[in-house]
């Protein structure tokens, strides 16, 4: 198989600009995806079979394993959502049709949780992603001790939840908390961070931002590593300053990854429950006495795990799925319209 090794060597000789053209030339000769004429028809048949089957072989591990251990439980959850079923009596469920969903639509708690999920999602995700891209950009410079900086950025994600809980409860405590103490210097009255609506949503968002900014920064950093250096070089020759390079080289090149983080963060924000739960402390699943920071994920956790209404909780889980589908559909329509108008 020395031939293929050579082919692979083409694009990366040690010097010269010429090799850049070669793959293109090769494509011209061979055509997209057409195999080179093999020495035997057996080989070419094998080759053709490989071309056809490989994609499926590559994606099959995911679908097989997920199908066996991920999909079945999720479908079960969907089945539960159509029943009256308690966590303590899984075998005694009675058919409820869409009752659980109908009840949600008429429940103030559900709409309140949806609203909170949206606002907390907004004030946590947007700054988080903006900061992450900035940090990634800085990490992408030639830095002394670059590995150490990367490691440090990911420590919030690795820090134990128990430890983070203690720290943030102490920071945001009403009486004698560090944040209120600092606010006192600028003459602001102590804020009851847990019980005020905006205060609690801000505090929860700050924990989310603290925990996930470095995480997203690393994702961006990986994508930045793949941006060709000569793009920056030619931009510099054109007189672009650092900001312009960032704006006109880095950002466009990151588009697929930005899309990825936006999708993931949207899903993550919809399902958010860990941070508000830890912020709330004892009986944190209520999200405050007026549910002022109860997200959909937290409402689901409270209903299914604490109260034991598995059917209703499952309906919340699946309505999150439906909500995300609606968001995606709106997004699609919006971009289509935008494209057409352009």
């Amino acid at each position, binding site marked *: 198989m020395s031939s293929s090794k050579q082919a692979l060597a083409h694009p990366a000789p040690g010097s010269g600009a010429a090799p850049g053209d070669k793959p293109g030339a090769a494509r011209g000769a061979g055509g997209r995806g057409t195999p080179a004429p093999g020495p035997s028809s057996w080989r070419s048949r094998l080759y053709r079979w490989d071309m056809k089957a490989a994609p499926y072989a590559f994606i099959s591990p995911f679908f097989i394993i997920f199908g066996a251990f991920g999909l079945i439980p999720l479908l079960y959850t969907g089945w539960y959502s159509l029943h009256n079923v308690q966590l303590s009596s899984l075998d005694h469920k009675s058919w409820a049709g869409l009752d659980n969903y109908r009840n949600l639509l008429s429940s103030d708690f559900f709409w309140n949780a949806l609203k909170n999920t949206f606002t907390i999602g907004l004030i946590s995700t947007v700054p988080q992603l903006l900061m992450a891209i900035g940090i990634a950009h800085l990490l992408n410079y030639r830095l002394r001790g670059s590995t150490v900086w990367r490691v440090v950025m990911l420590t919030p994600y690795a820090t134990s939840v128990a430890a983070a809980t203690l720290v943030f409860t*102490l920071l945001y405590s009403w009486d004698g908390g560090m944040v209120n103490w600092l606010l006192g210097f600028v003459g602001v009255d102590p804020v009851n961070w847990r*019980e005020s609506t905006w205060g609690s949503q801000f505090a929860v968002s700050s924990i989310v931002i603290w925990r996930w900014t470095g995480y997203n920064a690393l994702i961006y950093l990986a994508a930045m590593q793949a941006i060709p250096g000569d793009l920056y070089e030619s931009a510099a020759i054109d007189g672009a300053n650092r900001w312009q390079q960032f704006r006109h080289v880095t950002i466009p090149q990151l588009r697929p990854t930005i899309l990825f983080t936006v999708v993931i963060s949207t899903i993550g924000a919809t399902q958010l429950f860990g941070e508000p739960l830890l912020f709330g402390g004892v009986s944190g699943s209520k999200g405050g006495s007026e549910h002022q920071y109860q997200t959909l994920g937290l409402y689901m956790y409270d209903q299914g795990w604490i109260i034991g209404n598995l059917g209703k909780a499952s309906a919340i889980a699946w309505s999150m799925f439906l909500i995300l589908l609606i968001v995606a559909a709106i997004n699609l329509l919006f971009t289509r319209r935008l494209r057409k108008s352009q």
Partner: protein
Amino acid sequence: MRTSTRRSHRLMALAAVAALTTGVLAGCSSDSDGTSSNASDSGKGKTTLTVGTFGVFGYKQAGLYDAYMKLHPNITIKEDVTTRTDVYWPKVLTRLQAGAGTDDIQAIEVGNITEAVQTQADKFVDLGKDVDKSQWLPWKNAQATTKDGKQIGLGTDTGPMAICYRKDLFKKAGLPTDRTQLANLWKGDWAKYADVGKDYMKKAPKGTKFVDSASSVYNAAIGGESQRYYDKDGNVIWDKSTGVKAAWNAAMTVATSNMSAKLKQFDPTWDQGFANASFATVACPAWMMGYIQEKAGDSGKGNWDVAAAPTAANWGGSFLGVPTASKHQAEAVALAKWLTAPEQQEKVFAKQASFPSTPAAYPNLKPAAATTAYFSNAPITQIFSDSAKTIPVQTFGIKDQPIGTAITDVGILQVEQKGKTPAQGWSAATKEIKDVLGQ
């Protein structure tokens, strides 16, 4: 560069294969010690019993497991702890219903015992036949017994209630400091206790309040009421319940009269409240004494005292059950009986002040010397056993726990921290409870 990259690729591949195989192998090979029930017997006729708990029992610390293993050389005991109670019980429910993976003995907290009795009774061995029921307090047995008389759990500890208070603060506020005198002041009614609070606040030492939270008063008061959230037939009657009404009113007096430090129990800030002496009293079940001692620290030594609570009430306590899925039922039942016997409950009390549910133990209870000294040499065992013996039989229901949370952490909290009126708090709690019950 090039060789190192290639080598690292090959290494990666090797590592991948190796790790995947060891992963699966390790998973399989742990057959012998992985599952608790069939597990066990490492060939020499030894039986391993696992005790599933949420961590508060102190059996290991009191040396009970070691003592039992010495008495029964063929038994090995392992405790299977899940300290997060919001995970422990769902986990047990899931495992009971899967019929696999339960421990040989499973601890059940009082907040879950009714759910266990009403929905999981067929998954537990009937322990009533094997024991002398009269050893336990009657109300304790009643909590773990089904309608047709099957007892699925043996009582471990209980939480008889007293009032722990700071003598030094009371003195500064011009109140009596003698425990009998105080007990008489508020005897019979939590509303009277709140009245003492009003007196305290008239001359309260700077930076202190009378009580930690309104919710703790509610919990203490409801713990002594026979009528709570359900009637005997299992109907929800919380909004008509006389017990709820009384406890709610007492809590409202506290919440609306500036005598509460407005803390949330078991939050880190509550711990700080003990350390800073920012409240003068707390309704304390026996098991909380050690907590106070630890959190309030040296500065509180000799300043804390204990008085009888307005009403005899219970807060907390647990049971040990033996799931039918256990492969060693006989051995497990024997161990559960032994662990809950009066002599063993005495030892746990000496270790961590978990109050026994077996009256036979009461005459012999010896609290740790340090605890007695810390609480001004109060007759701790006398106060708590008086309370334990007079607690009424209470009627419990499946959703007691979430209903209680709805009242304290929604209704009362709104009044206490957000300045809502009691009527607003009540209607918020009502709405919440309807949501809990799926109405």
